[in-house]
């Protein structure tokens, strides 16, 4: 009887061990995922976006962004095409960290008078004598790493040839084209004033309920300054969201 029990116990342990091993094996076979929010802040009306040479977004209007469900796309090469001209710009290979959240912000106007890696700075006019470069598009990745005190506001100047400054807490911060500034410890609801070449733009940030870090990207729409907001999801915000949704259910 004791022997029988011992055999049974051994078998049980064996089964459990097998299950554990099996699940580990299963976990090892699942592809790693990462969450990428793609933000189209280019200064052309719409792009077509290919990812790893496959068309992902045939018509991706400027000012929009994608959802960021986790996807098994750890390494990616993006190619943006100006749908009006067919002009294409390709990113370097981007490697994302598995299990992370980030935004891929696409900037630029597909002009060819600016060296790669930067947007045209103010005062640089297009001339026939300018050297021709590949279409000017920047693919910038910003991690959604959690911060201790949201809201962290990242302000990106995606406007080729335009100066941007933002007044926050009585301080004016200047942001060059293609660059960004970070405002930390901002309230969930706040109003800022941005200036683009002297033009004042009121910028209101208003979050209620789920409070997250955010990105504000300025770009040119029909030649005029415009901006869009993108909010940064991460593990912490996803957990809070689920909690809120459970409460509301």
């Amino acid at each position, binding site marked *: 009887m004791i022997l029988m029990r011992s055999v049974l116990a051994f078998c049980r342990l064996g089964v459990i061990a097998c299950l554990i091993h099996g699940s580990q094996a299963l976990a090892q076979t699942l592809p790693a995922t990462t969450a990428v929010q793609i933000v189209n802040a280019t200064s052309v009306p719409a792009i077509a976006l290919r990812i790893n040479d496959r068309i992902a977004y045939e018509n991706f209007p400027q000012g929009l*962004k994608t959802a*960021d*469900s986790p*996807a098994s796309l750890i390494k990616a090469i993006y190619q943006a095409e100006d749908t009006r001209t067919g002009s294409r710009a390709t990113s370097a290979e981007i490697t994302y960290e598995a299990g992370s959240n980030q935004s891929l912000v696409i900037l630029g106007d597909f002009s060819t008078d600016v060296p790669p890696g930067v947007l045209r700075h103010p005062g640089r006019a297009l001339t026939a004598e300018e050297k021709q470069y590949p279409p000017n598009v920047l693919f910038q990745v910003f991690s959604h790493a959690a911060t201790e005190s949201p809201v962290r506001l990242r302000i990106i100047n995606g406007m080729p040839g335009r100066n941007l400054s933002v007044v926050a807490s009585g301080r004016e911060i200047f942001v060059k084209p293609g660059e960004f500034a970070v405002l930390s410890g901002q309230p969930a609801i706040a109003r800022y004033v941005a200036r683009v070449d002297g033009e004042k733009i009121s910028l209101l940030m208003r*979050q*209620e309920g789920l409070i997250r870090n955010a990105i504000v990207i300025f770009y040119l729409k029909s030649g005029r300054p415009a901006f869009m907001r993108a909010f940064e999801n991460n593990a912490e915000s996803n957990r809070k969201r*689920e909690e809120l949704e459970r409460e509301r259910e």
Partner: protein
Amino acid sequence: MRRRRSKAASLITTLLVIVVLSTIAVAFLQSTSIDRLTAKSAKNILQAELAARAGLNAAIAQILTAVGTNSAFVTGSTNYAVDHGPLVMIGRTNLVDSIQLMPLVSAPPDLMRKFLQTEWTNSLTTLFSDLVGAKSVDINGRSGIIQSTTDNKLYRALWVLISSSSGEQIGRFAFLVLDENARVNPLIHSGSGTMASSIDWYSGPSDISLTNSSAPILTRPEQSAILAARSHLLTPESLAQAFEAKTNYDRVKHLLTVQANETCDVIPAALASGGRPKHNINELATNSLNGATAELRANRIAGIISSNLNSFSSRDPSLRGLAGEEMQYLRRLAAGIVDYIDSDLAPTAVNGGEPAGRDLFPLVTAVAERFRRTSLDTNAATTTIESQCFVQVWNPYTTEIDLSNQVLRFVVRNRMKVNFGTGIVTPFHDYDGTRATSVVIRPNEFAVIEFPTTYQTWSSPGPVSDVPRWDDGPSGNADETTHCPFEFYIDGRLVDMNRRPPVGPDVAVSGMVRSGLAFTNASNRWQCSFIPTQHSAPNWRFVGDGRATYLCNYDWQTLGNSSYVTGTRWKGRQQSTAPRYQEFTANWVQRDYVRDNPPMGTAPASINQTPSEVPAPNGRMDAVAAAPAVLGNKAMRSVGELGHIFDPAQAADDLSAPISSELPYNNKISGGGRSLRIGQPEFRSGTTDSWDTNGRRAIELIDLFTVNATNSGSGGYPAAAGRINPNTATPEVLAAVLSGIQISSDRAIPVSSLNSVAAIAANIVSNRPYSVLSDLHKVMNSFATGANYTPAFPVSIGGGTTNLAAMDRVREEAFGKLVQHLTVQSRTYRIIAVGEAFDPRGKPRGRATIEAIVFLQNRPGGGVRPIITFQRTF
């Protein structure tokens, strides 16, 4: 002997002849003396009559001097001495500034010449002093021509000497002018009308009865006799025929008139349009001559208010300070006036498109938006979500709203952006549902209108392992800074909406809050939003008045699935818990008191039962009667009906501009819960925001607007007969007018009447003068005291003040029924002039009295011309 006889006969004959001749001579002499005396007496009488006539002419001249060319004169009275009857006065522009006050009593020319000069004030003092001295005469006299002598009232007037061209004093006159508009006319104040209607607060002078038991002037037989003798009653004294005894007539003759006493509606002199005709508010609201569209007519009304009542627009503290912004308030108010009167159901839009007019349509109080995931294909990476709106509307008015054969449309904009897989984040399309309806919404009833279901599909570039979801608003909405605003249309007309541009002047936008949710299964997901009833910060709250939703920038808070069954109520009021607090009796207490709550709605049985499927609650029988607001959709019968107009002022309970430190909106614009106060004390505040100050009181609108029409003889001025002047009427007359008023607007409380009309009349008398009709604000407390009614109005105590626990319309009904019978400008005067002739030694040798009625007719270009309608000499 014969000869001696003959001589004797001759002597006798001679003597006889002498006697006869003497007799004849004496008789002749006597006859001459009598004729001389008779001629002398006739001369005295004629001279006395001429003196009295001079007095009459002087009286008329004095009236014309008092009026000048100003059509906006006012008529008052003063009690200058104990035991003396009141003295009628005309104020050229008001009844306060003594330099332009003319007492209608005879006075020496040297004194009269100082009228309108700085010395006039001293002259008046002298005059009043002399009136009680030896230089005056009691016009009433022993005959009691004015009032029964048993009343011991003195009606004294100063003698004015009349001199011949040679300077000889040949007579004198004295006169006194009485106000016929101080009296009642039993021929037209017949009581055949009624002051009991809950809707029509005025039907004519016949509303006034002189036989009410609480303030009788006549007995019923006397009234009947007067009406029976109607065709014979041409003179004031002829009224005596209808009384059984002269003593009965003497008792009341000073209260009666047979004149129609037509008076005109004139804008007070102190206003910019002073002297011009008051504006007929019904004509302004509906006649295309005043503007081709309702908006233009509303703008005209706003312009009239703005140009005359310069401070009125500052009632709205949220707009105070800038003329252009304050005009928005006036246009909103005027739109409400237009819609109260016109017969259509469409709100008048002003200020560039605001649906400001509050017409007879239901107002949105809650919205339930239902969502359900109808498909999810993880491989094809598509999902479809259906959505549907249920709109709860409320009829706050005392009349039914018939939506038969009307097309309703409900729109929700700026909806949530849906995250699905890695697809481009796109929002729900605007919900735009339309349906025909034939619902009739009873007073104070809540109804749920079900709108159609719509579907929308999202896709992602590749297979998905996630479910569709949206994030918390507003950052999860299409516009990441505002919540979802709604619009409600009836037959293509926007009737209700959340605040949004063009409602200004600030950028405040409100909408329905949407909280983040994920479609983890295919069950219903509810988002139920409620009209704001902010009560946690009483100083800046909004009270959930649907009439002000378009102005309110508070967001509509939302309950989700977990509270759909436990927390939401449909086809009735919400319960008073967060975030709804829909309890009118508690939240409106500092504004228009709402006597009773509508019944609470019914909770859904499950998340599968829609608000339209929820059974209606068992409503109390008085729910209908407890509707708080009145909307006429008809011409106003009494200018007091302006008190029903919704007041769009954006003010906190203490009438200040609501301020909040909460971004993004610095101005927390609350309001609602108020209609104009005309008939009860104005809303008060201990601060500079108070409306109970000159220029801001709502009652001042009655100085500009009338409901009377012009007639062929009124010279372009609106006119009405039989109105009483509260400045001159006796307490008995005022009490008689008040005694017929019955309060019946609130069917939930018994019909009541004023129980102390004598006290209220005395209060009106003691608060004189009333230079303008709106000066009656001084006596509003009389109408706001519950104990002044039988049965007494219930009383509530809230916020440190005692309120009548009766609906707003009831508290204003008594005054609304009174004011249409009142005027402060009298046009018909009774002149009693006494003349005396002097003998050569300057002694009075004859007296004559003339009684005349003078009607002041408008003269083109300003001023008046006198028309003597009756005259007698005795």
